[in-house]
């Protein structure tokens, strides 16, 4: 009968899958046992060399170990990684780089040419952490490969940025990889030294918008007065556009401007972001008109603008009194609420 055949087929299929799963289980058990043993060995070596390795790093020397088996190298890598996260001195960092070059660079070189994506990424992260400039060429080679993934591109370019290769990095972020996110560009630009970043600022007009925004974002974060005239110029050039708003954000973060009056018209801007940023900037300029402007903005229809205006009041010398006035006299319940909240904030 037909059904009987199906029962038999199904029965065998089930048995087959079962055996297959059991084999995988067996493989995983063996793997776990071996790996648990390996971790044990690596941890033993780590304990053994930890102190002398640390002494070498703090003295800026290179620790010598003749045994270079897999376990020793793994232990070394893990220890160097944990130190590289914490040490800041140039001497110590140099020592970590020297040791990574000596013991780990060969392994990384091979991995970068290998097929495993996750191993390549791990190697790139380590190369970046240990500042292994010696491997720049290998990283460049990887960047030339056709099958490279976005994650690899970002870490690689970031690494090159840290080595101060302005021209190269500029080409990568402005021409070859124009589809990265704000976030990625920022993480790359952030690695540049002051000189290379200055070159980016110089060539601002050649950059595509996302890159421009990231440059402005970095200036906002670094709050460096030396870029003030640059961002002021950008603000004027790109008024009313996204780029202009980002430039305004940078100015508000730096917290200074040569001429606050040039921004006065923003209090009536149709973009709430501009009104809010203006409210933020004005807290650095204690003048009669600042109090008036903030008093207008605290009645804004947008919550963010109101909240920023109230916050800015608290930074001005006579701001508290003004807030109390608003809390007691304003006809606008929203303005009263926000004034009350910010008055109370100082208490906790």
């Amino acid at each position: 009968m037909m059904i009987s055949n199906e029962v038999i087929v199904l029965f065998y299929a089930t048995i087959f899958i079962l055996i297959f799963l059991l084999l995988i289980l067996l493989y995983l058990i063996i793997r776990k046992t071996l790996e648990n043993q390996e971790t044990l060995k690596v941890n033993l070596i780590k304990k053994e060399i930890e102190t002398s390795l640390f002494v070498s790093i703090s003295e800026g020397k290179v620790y010598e170990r003749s045994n270079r088996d897999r376990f020793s190298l793994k232990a070394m890598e893990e220890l160097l990684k944990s130190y590289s996260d914490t040490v800041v001195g140039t001497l110590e960092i140099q020592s970590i780089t020297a040791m990574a070059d000596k013991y780990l660079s060969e392994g990384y070189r091979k991995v970068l040419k290998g097929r495993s994506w996750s191993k390549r990424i791990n190697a790139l992260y380590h190369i970046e952490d240990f500042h292994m400039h010696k491997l720049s060429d290998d990283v460049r080679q990887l960047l030339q490969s056709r099958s490279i993934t976005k994650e690899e591109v970002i870490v690689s370019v970031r690494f090159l940025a840290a080595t101060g290769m302005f021209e190269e990095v500029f080409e990568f972020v402005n021409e070859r990889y124009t589809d990265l996110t704000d976030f990625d560009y920022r993480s790359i630009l952030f690695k540049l030294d002051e000189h290379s970043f200055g070159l980016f600022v110089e060539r601002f007009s050649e950059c595509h918008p996302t890159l421009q925004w990231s440059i402005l974002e970095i200036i906002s974060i670094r709050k460096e007065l030396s870029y003030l005239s640059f961002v002021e110029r950008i603000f004027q050039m790109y008024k009313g556009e996204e780029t202009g708003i980002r430039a305004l954000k940078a100015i508000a973060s730096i917290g200074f401007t040569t001429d606050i009056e040039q921004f006065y018209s923003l209090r009536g801007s149709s973009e709430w972001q501009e009104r809010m940023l203006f409210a933020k900037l004005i807290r650095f300029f204690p003048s009669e008109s600042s109090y008036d402007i903030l008093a207008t903005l605290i009645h804004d229809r947008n919550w963010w603008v109101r909240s920023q205006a109230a916050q800015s009041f608290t930074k001005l010398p006579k701001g508290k009194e003004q807030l109390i006035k608003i809390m007691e006299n304003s006809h606008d319940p929203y303005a009263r609420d926000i004034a009350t909240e910010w008055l109370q904030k100082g208490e906790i």
Partner: protein
Amino acid sequence: MLQQIGEYIAIVFGGFITIYMVLVISFYSVILLLSLLQLRREYKLDKEQAYDEYLNDLYTKPISIIVPAFNEEAGLIQSVRSLLGINYPTYEIIVVNDGSTDDSLNKMIRHYEMTEIKKVIRKQVETKNIKGIYQSRTLPNLYLIDKENGGKADALNVGLNFSHYPYICSLDGDSVLERDAFLKVMKPIMISNEDVIASGGSVRIANGCKISNGHLLEVGLSKHPLVIMQIIEYLRAFLMGRIGLSRHNLLLIVSGAFGVFSKSWVAEAGGYKTTTVGEDMELVVRLHRLIKEKGAKKKIVYVPDPVCWTEVPEETKFLRRQRRRWHRGLFESLWAHRKLAFNPKYGSIGMISFPYFWIVEFFGPIIELSGYIYVLSSLFLGGIYLEFAIIIFLLSCLYGSLFSMASVLLEEWSLRKYPKVSHIVKLFLYSMTETLWYRPLTVFWRCEGIWQIIVGEKGWGEMKRKGVSE
């Protein structure tokens, strides 16, 4: 004559169950394959390294963590402590006391030295009244809101209104997070330029793990067979199902126990719905719907690695209540958005996710239950029935046990949260028995849930917690 009709019905019925199971098994096999491919890529990636970069203050987006609490005095202090220790640059914790009748409120106030403050709340979603707002004197990023009882969804909405940051995360009061969980779950949001509007992590079972002071010290395995079976079930749902679905933006559930949402999108969608017992799924469905209706290119994703450890019922009585409630929640979400099912306007969500949830997740238990009844009764009747019964039994072994065994192996192959060899062996052996007892039990409870829908039963049913921390 009568016997012939009987045989005919038996064959048609048996055939129907068989075809159903074959279809579902094929569907699961495809999903399993998708998950495998995805996990393979990240295999052996050094996770800590990959997330280091995001820890930098400049890159991370601040999160408001909302902890709704209703009579959770056993675990609340501990889970807040676990939150205070997470590895994330900027966040605030908002505990919302949903009219607890126990001592939750006072315990919180005493333990974290909280004082009442005045604060304006931007009312983006309508909620029940707030009785008081407190802030900790020692930890300024810890807030406590006391409100009238209105259910979990209402508490979440209050937290949503109060929150200061652009991303919100809802977290159950009895769960413990791994330290890097937020970094990992936020990564897709950060790198996608905000194209990802919700991101969920895995939920694992804390019973049997060593937890002290709100921190996970050691992953272990419970001794209760019922808990072990739930571990396997969670592994299967998260590793096998969600990875495959997330890849193609088909995800309908971001775990209520641990998910991050973009606040503006949640507010625009109208916040959490208070009239359903499955508010987490309902919200995700509503977000999908909003995305499609606005024609936006936004995504909802699942990240397998960040893990939130949570307590599950150890007694049959409470597990049964939970499953019946879940099934009702599922129905409420599917029914409220029934328009989406088989609607090409909603793309793959309407054509794949919705039909899957209706047919397999919702009606599946009824078909499975009738399959069990068929198998049992054929033992007495013999003949032609018996052969079909064997087919159905073998298929349900494939369906239940084998997929679960595969999930256990997948876990050990990719994420490997369980440290000992014995853990894996134990999980594997237990998963072999799934078809024989655990699966039929849950199927039966879910059918009970359907029955409750028919007779119109509402409410959560009381849950007992003993607290996961020592």
